[in-house]
């Protein structure tokens, strides 16, 4: 019963976040810039609940992002899985439930994500896919702010 509830909760989180990301990036993106909600949530999920669940969510969110973009199919999924795994490794070394560490994690994860996508693109298509300086310099901080806000809004889990 508990596992079913958890599964339903995960599905709700998955579809709700995917819808919000689409809504935000297509309707509320001044100058074409919208935060990467799915990336921020993957990192937040990994730092709060551990890597396995975040990796699963990140994988499917990544596939969703891949299906929405013209990039290599699977690159976003791989990037989010790796970010979830890396966050899971460092979650015990910091108080990742607080707003400031969440923001730092989100900013670092965003830069890592952009560079990783470029490298993957270079490996598979021999062309480094660069997101542009505006996205590279602005988006991570936008993501950081969003992560901090989410950390403040979201109730803390006991024992974390």
């Amino acid at each position, binding site marked *: 019963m508990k596992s079913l509830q958890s599964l339903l909760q995960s599905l709700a989180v998955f579809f709700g976040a995917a819808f919000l990301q*689409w809504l935000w990036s*297509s309707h509320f993106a001044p100058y074409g810039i919208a935060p990467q909600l799915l990336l921020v949530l993957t990192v937040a999920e990994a730092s709060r609940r*551990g*890597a*396995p669940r975040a*990796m*699963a969510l990140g*994988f499917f969110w*990544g596939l969703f992002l*891949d*299906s*929405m973009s013209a990039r*290599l*199919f*699977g*690159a976003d*999924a*791989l990037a989010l*899985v*790796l970010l979830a*795994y890396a966050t*899971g*490794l460092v979650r*015990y070394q910091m108080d990742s439930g607080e707003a400031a560490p969440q923001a730092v994690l989100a900013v670092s994860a965003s830069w890592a994500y952009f560079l990783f996508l470029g490298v*993957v693109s270079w490996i*598979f298509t021999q062309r480094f896919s660069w997101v542009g300086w505006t996205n590279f310099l602005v988006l991570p901080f936008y993501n950081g702010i969003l992560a901090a806000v989410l950390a403040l809004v979201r109730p803390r889990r006991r024992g974390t």
Partner: protein
Amino acid sequence: MQREAKISNYFLAFYCAVCLLLLSLPLSVPVASLKAGVVYIMDPAIFTGEKAQERLAQLPERIRGLITADQENQVFRAQAQESLWLEDNLKELSVENQRLRSLLGLRAPRGWSPLWARVMERDPLNRYHSFLVDAGQNEGVAVDDPVLGPSPAGLAVVGRVVEVRPLSSVVLLLTDELSAVAADISSGTVEGLVQGQGDARLLLNYLPPGAEPQAGETVYTSPTSAVFPGNIPIGMVAKVRPEDPFLAVKSAEIRPEVDAAALADVAILIKRAARPVLLEPAK
């Protein structure tokens, strides 16, 4: 913690393997179709324009057909809306054409030029008081110009201009209580004064005691009128009022020839200027 790390490692290996498999496979037809379908549902705008044609060309025939059919459907819907709008417009133009045709056959009295104007605004409190027309000083309209309206019998009296602005004029209707015009009955021998009553009826007053107006007789403007040219229909005698033994005059109710409250176009009569006479220079 150890258990979580172990599970994470298994998960990592599994997801990486799947992702690498997806990455290393060429973008096969089903994946491209799926992507096109999802992207088209989420954001159809990017499937318009030159780039979209390139994108569509790479898709399988059936998916391309679906997307183009949806786009064509949207275009046809817009065209259907437009044709509905055009149909409405056509109907409106047809009605207007019919109205203008009926006006075309009307002739103004000799010595006057008709200036056709549209009724713009009516007095909201009393539709038989006055209205505003879209012709004014710039078109040569002056105060006291007679205003006529189309009726089955030709042009009939509606009122007179009482206020002139550059682009519009105020017309005081004959049905207003302040309006009056000298009139005679179709026999041409009996003259009276038609006065407005503030409603749809007029009153033909001050008829001499010997006059015998009959219901259905037409009432015309009198040639003695200071404002209106003579012999223009005003209305028909609807009811002769009983004679008052204390009054030396008779009166009758008149039904106006034109319902001024429902008029859309009126003719303002402008007196034709006398042709200038060119005098020969004295030798």
